[in-house]
């Protein structure tokens, strides 16, 4: 793949100072590490200058002390490079990230899911409310506060959740 090296060179030259690190992590996987302040500039550069027209997925990762938000961005025409933008959110109590819906419309639901599952506030999102959980989920009577954002590590499934043991039959 010649494409991916070109992309890496361009990113390193044009975005120097805005990114923490850029490297090829696997076949046709290019990772950029950055912080939320520079995210929109980087995304605009990727979408418009590198011509990556489609956003695949936004995944949140909870590393106990901080959050990562990982964007996978794709271009379809024969080039299999997927740019993986990894944004580190240090402030765990008030995680905030700018919205990229103005660049890729498909980010809409992904960002809502991010808010829904991790409680990461996506600033600038046109319609930031819960997607998969009910709208009034916050008002429910929760057993534990971690149920508010269930994909965080604090929320765990019950012990031995799925080991099914048939109970011995009681005599009638």
């Amino acid at each position, binding site marked *: 793949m010649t494409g991916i090296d070109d992309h890496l060179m361009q990113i390193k030259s044009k975005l120097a100072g805005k990114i923490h690190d850029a490297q090829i*992590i*696997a076949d*046709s*996987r290019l990772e950029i590490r950055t912080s939320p302040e520079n995210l929109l500039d980087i995304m605009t550069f990727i979408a418009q200058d590198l011509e990556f*027209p*489609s*956003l*695949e*997925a936004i*995944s949140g*990762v*909870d590393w106990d002390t901080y959050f990562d938000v*990982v964007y*996978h961005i794709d271009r*379809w*025409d*024969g*080039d*299999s490079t*997927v740019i*993986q933008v990894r944004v580190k959110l240090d402030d765990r109590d008030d995680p905030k990230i700018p919205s990229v819906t103005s660049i*890729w*419309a*498909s980010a*809409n*639901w992904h960002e809502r899911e991010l808010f829904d599952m991790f409680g990461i506030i996506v600033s600038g999102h046109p319609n930031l409310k*819960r*997607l*998969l*959980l*009910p709208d009034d989920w916050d008002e429910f009577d929760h057993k534990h506060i971690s149920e508010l954002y*269930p*994909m965080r590590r604090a*929320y*765990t*499934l019950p012990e031995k*959740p*799925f080991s099914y043991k048939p109970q011995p039959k009681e005599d009638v």
Partner: protein
Amino acid sequence: MSEQMYIHMGPQHPVNHGLWTLKVKTEGEQVVGSEILIGYIFRMIEKMAESRPYDTFQPLADRLCYVSAMSWEGTYIMAIEKLLGMEISKRAQYMRVIMLEFQRIASHFTWLSAYAGDLGVLTMLVIPYREREYVLDLLEHVTGSRMMYNYFRVGGLKHEFPNGFIDDARMLTYYLDDRVAEYNAMLEDSKVFMLRSKNVGVLSKENALNLGATGPVLRASGTQGDIRKVEPYLVYPDLEFEVPVRTGGDCLARFQVRMAEIRQSTHIIRQALDNLPAEGEINQKAPRRLPKGEVYFRTEDPRGEAGYYIIGNEDQIPYRVKIKSPAYSNLCLTSHLITGGKVADIPPIVASADLCMGEIDR
């Protein structure tokens, strides 16, 4: 009528095959706005994947979508193998290709019957199910199950093909080719079908990319977006096939793309059956622990690009599993497509996106 009114379609409504709500704002017969509400069958499958040893998640991956279970479990297994750095034998790879392509055919038949049923051709609602049943019979013969197969394993497959499978499969592919020709005659030659499909729900190439369309929806808009070609996995580079692309971007183009894909799939299956190596280990031993690292692996699901983002942390249990579902993006853009059209165009547009709520809500 100039007054606007909201029509709720769902969660129980014929237009949505599955549980979701489409809130449509109408002005007479004109749709002026819409909102989609999902989450009715949210099961936190990602959390389940993060709470158990990686190999025990595979039966749950089947449950992501009941129409294309094989491809979801296949994607998961292949992602894990990539993370583990395993290389599986050629024979197992060919067998996987055969299974995945049969699953694609079955899924497209289900789609066809849903689409035709939404247009009101009740005959075509029933008949594709007959052909799908033959495919499912074949898959059942191999795996012992009609829908939730649990056939792939990390390192290969559960067991060999049964006796006589090769001949049955080859005969079935020829039969299916005939049937698809028949469907085309039934639908594409019908003027009313063309009236209802042509120029309905047009998605331009730029919009398709920007809104994150994948799979047949993307290819119907003129982009050569097939992971089997863009980023080949298994033995797809060795097999000769083309990616059907249409430029219309409407429901008709999506129909044609899917019909052409069925033909390509039968073509692939026949090649794979011919080239299937006689010898090869099909179930290797796999390491118990996932290494530290991450992988974003994607395959071509019948609905589009299915992806797993898996982070391993030197443990049996994956640290993070993110599922990228093609129907999720395709449903998101449906709201964009129906706005500005007629109320009567909602069913074909929604159906042509090929939704499966299991993988959307996850």
